[in-house]
Each structure stands twice: as structure tokens, then as C-alpha cells.
């Protein structure tokens, strides 16, 4: 749920990176933190376990400047991907405006991708939201591992994850940065479009 301060003409939206554990959600945010220095409005906060797994969430605030007369700020979050942190994922998802689903391209993680997407759909449902209606982008991460380990083709991943959703999707490599910016930009675009529809801020 966006925060819209009409008096100050400020909008604060929330985008959450979701996906299976070790899929590259935090790496996406780390790359964005380095690559979009001008937009970053504060430190990136990462709460990790010893094994460098996200424990609660990562957080990165960015500012997009003035859009249609409104100062637009966006909070980027990641959720912990491990199955046992379901309640934390649900908590972080509260009030979400847009989503990036970071899928792992490795064949061995195929089932985990699908479980995570189902988990996302279920959690959204509990907040009265639909995975089919919320701004959502898919990123097929770890394409840089092609040739090193068996990875799925884009077509296979589209069939697994996107044949019903039919949302924008991008191949990517969070470690090299390939596709990270495109994914985020597209998610911001869809989210702002959705908020504009919801809040009609340009008309206020």
C-alpha cells in the first residue's frame, strides 16, 4: 500500500524481491545499490545469518525524483527465500506495491522456483491480493552459469513460471549486473503506472 502525502506531494512505494533461497535476490539489490548511486537515499541494510543467507529482509531506499509533480520514493526489499521463513516473508510482503520474482536458472533449482512462486501467490492471497493483478516482473537469474552447470532454457522457464502470468521477464545475472537494471526499471514503470491508476496523483 503506497504512502501518498498529498500536502507534500510525496509518494512512497514498496517493491519486494521474491524467489527461492540463494536465487540472487540480495545480489540484485547489492548491484542496484552500486549501480544507481544517484538514486540511493540511504545505506543498504542487510540482515544475514552466518551462512550469508537473508534472515529477515534486505532494505534499500531509492528516490526517483519528481514524476508528474510528485516526489517519488521507493523502498526495495528482499525476503528470506528459505522455506522455513514463511512467516517472515509474509510480514515483509505486507503493503507491497510491486514485485520482482528472481528465479534461479539452474536445473537443480527448477522445483524450488515453482514452490516459491506458489508461496508468493498464497501469501498475496492472504492479503487479499492477486498475483495476476499486482505489478510483477520475472527475472531468470544466473544466466552467466551457462556451460558450467546445467541451466534451463528461457523457453523452459517461461513455460514453468510465466505461461499463465504472462508478465514481462528478463534473463539476468545479478553478479555481473546483466538484466538487473532492466528488471528494476520495468518493475518501477509498472508499479508507478499502477499507483497512478490507483491514486490518480497527476490529477490531484
Amino acid at each position, binding site marked *: 500500500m503506497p504512502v501518498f502525502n498529498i500536502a507534500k506531494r510525496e509518494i512512497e512505494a514498496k517493491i519486494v524481491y521474491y524467489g527461492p533461497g*540463494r536465487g540472487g535476490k540480495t545480489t540484485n539489490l547489492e548491484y542496484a545499490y552500486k549501480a544507481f548511486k544517484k538514486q540511493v537515499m540511504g545505506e543498504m*541494510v542487510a*540482515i544475514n*545469518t*552466518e*551462512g*550469508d*543467507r537473508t*534472515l*529477515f529482509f534486505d*532494505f534499500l531506499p531509492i528516490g526517483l525524483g519528481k514524476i508528474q509533480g510528485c516526489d517519488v520514493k521507493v*523502498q526495495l526489499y528482499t525476503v528470506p527465500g528459505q522455506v*522455513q521463513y514463511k*512467516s*517472515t516473508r509474509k*510480514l515483509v510482503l*505486507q*503493503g507491497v506495491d510491486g514485485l520482482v520474482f528472481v528465479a534461479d536458472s*539452474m536445473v*537443480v*533449482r527448477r522445483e524450488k522456483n515453482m514452490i516459491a512462486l506458489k508461496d508468493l501467490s*498464497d501469501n498475496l492471497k*492472504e*492479503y*487479499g491480493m492477486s498475483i495476476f493483478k499486482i505489478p510483477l516482473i520475472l527475472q531468470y537469474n544466473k544466466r552467466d*552459469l551457462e556451460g*558450467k*552447470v*546445467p541451466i534451463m532454457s528461457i523457453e523452459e522457464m517461461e513455460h514453468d513460471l510465466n505461461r499463465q502470468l504472462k508478465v514481462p521477464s528478463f534473463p539476468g545475472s545479478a553478479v555481473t549486473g546483466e538484466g538487473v537494471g532492466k528488471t528494476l526499471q520495468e518493475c518501477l514503470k509498472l508499479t508507478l503506472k499502477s499507483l497512478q491508476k490507483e491514486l490518480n496523483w497527476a490529477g490531484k
Partner: protein
Amino acid sequence: MTLQEKIKALLQEADLYKNQSLLNEAKDKFAEVLDLIKEKGSSIKNVDNVINAISKKVEALEKEIETMYKSATTPIVSEKAQNLIKQLFSFSNSGNSNEANLQAAIALAKFGQHERAIKEFKDLLKVDSMRLVAAKNVLRCLISHTSIDEAITQFREWQSNDLFNPQELEKVKVFLEGYFAKHGIEKDLFQSNAQQNEDQPSYLEDEGLDEEILDISSIAITLDNGPNKGEPVELDVSFQAGNIISLIISSQDKSLIDNLKVGVKLNNVHFYSPVAIFSGSGIVAEKSIIATGPKKGDYSLDIKVVNS
């Protein structure tokens, strides 16, 4: 591809999974290599040494996996991180600072930062309108984070000071005794020299479980019949008054609405509170369609929580 080349490729794959912290996948891949060598690798030079080396890798991974699952408990994070949790997850739109502080303390408790949450709840004990809910949350945190005895000690401390009025204290007592009754715990809340005021009603004598149960944030039910039979359904609680919880069910969940007729008993319900999960059963007490507002067309459902 020769056998040696295949083994080399599989070992590289296993190492890459290990580097990605995909420990189970790495272990399975190393195990696959072991099976392959045992089956076809008798001609490999120093085969026993190779098997031994890979077996050690599998053992090391098993230990690492075990450690990872053991450390799945919630650690205490830095004060800075706790402040961020407070700031980001309080979700209070009322504009009331006490309400926001309560929400922030609940957020800390949900993230397992009980000590800090207790401190925040205790600060709210000074606020008349927040005292009761804050006190209940202090006790919940103590029960889940330290021990029941600590919760009793805290209650006795409140008994011996004048922070709470008698009615408030009675409600806190009923809440705690209700928790004990629900969990089959036999504890005396009163110090041996404490005198109970005989004029005060004991809510525990009332029918039902009013005020005895934890605040419930969501429930999971599994229906015994109908098209949703056997499917677990999770629903958020929108309001709670004692042992009656209200839920809103979307008009799109038609089969679920049809199944949940007034009077239906729901067995094996999981009740989720901010700090605990308990099982029990419930009875559909009331069902009505929402006639106005943004939820128009959806259904409001009251479920009475009953003992299992």
C-alpha cells in the same frame, strides 16, 4: 566423454553448488560421483583414495547442513536493525503515536526480538488506553521467550505495585489463567501470603473462553467435506472479541463460503497469534454478506473458538 571426464565435470558441478551455498544439491552431486566410481571406476588410479576424499566432502557437507538447520533459531539483531524493523513494519495508519508504538513493539516481537519488544511494551504500560494490551503482550513475550515462571513473576510484580487498577489486574489474571488452562499448566498466580479479593468475579467461571485466549492474527482450517475437502485454507482475522474471531472471505471463494455454514464445527484449526501457534477447534457462529464499503459483496464470518 570418458569416465574420467564425466567424473571431473560432475565434481566441478558439485563444487559450484557448494560455492553457491546450495549444500543439499552439492551433497547429492558428490554422492552421484561416488556411486558412479563405485559402479564403473575400478580402473581409476588410486580409486580408494578418490572415494575417501569425496566421502569426506559429503560428510563435511552433512555437518554443514545440520549446523545450518540448528542455527535456524532467530538471533538478536543490532539495535540499528531493530530500529529499522520498528520503523518499517509498524503499519499504523491511525496517526496515534501510542498505536504506532504498539504496532512497532508487535513488529519486534514478530521478528523474534523479544527483549526489545518487552521494553517497548513496558513503556506503553504508562498509557491508560494501552496498558492492558501491552501487559498481555509482555506476558506473551515472556512465555515464548523466557519461561512461564518469568511471566508469573512479572504478574506478581504488577500485583504488588499500583500501576494497574483492580479491574485491569483481574483481566490480566484471567488472560494468564486462560493460557494456563488451555495448555494444561497448573500454576498458582498468587503468592502464598496474597489475599484474593472475593468480591471480584472470576471470569474463568464464565461459559466459554472469553478473554482466555491469545489474540489471533490468522487461522488455518482444513475442511472435512465439499470441493475444498482436505485443502488447508489460511485466513486472516480482522477482529477478535474474546473467543469470537471475525474473518472476511472474498466473494470469489464461493465454494468456501458455501461450505462454512452456520453451526459447522471446524476440527483441527491452527490459530496463529503474534508469538504462538496453537491448535483447537471452532464453530461457525455467524455468516453475513457485507452490504457496504470497499468489501461489499464479501462475507463476514464469525468463528467461536472452542476447546479441542
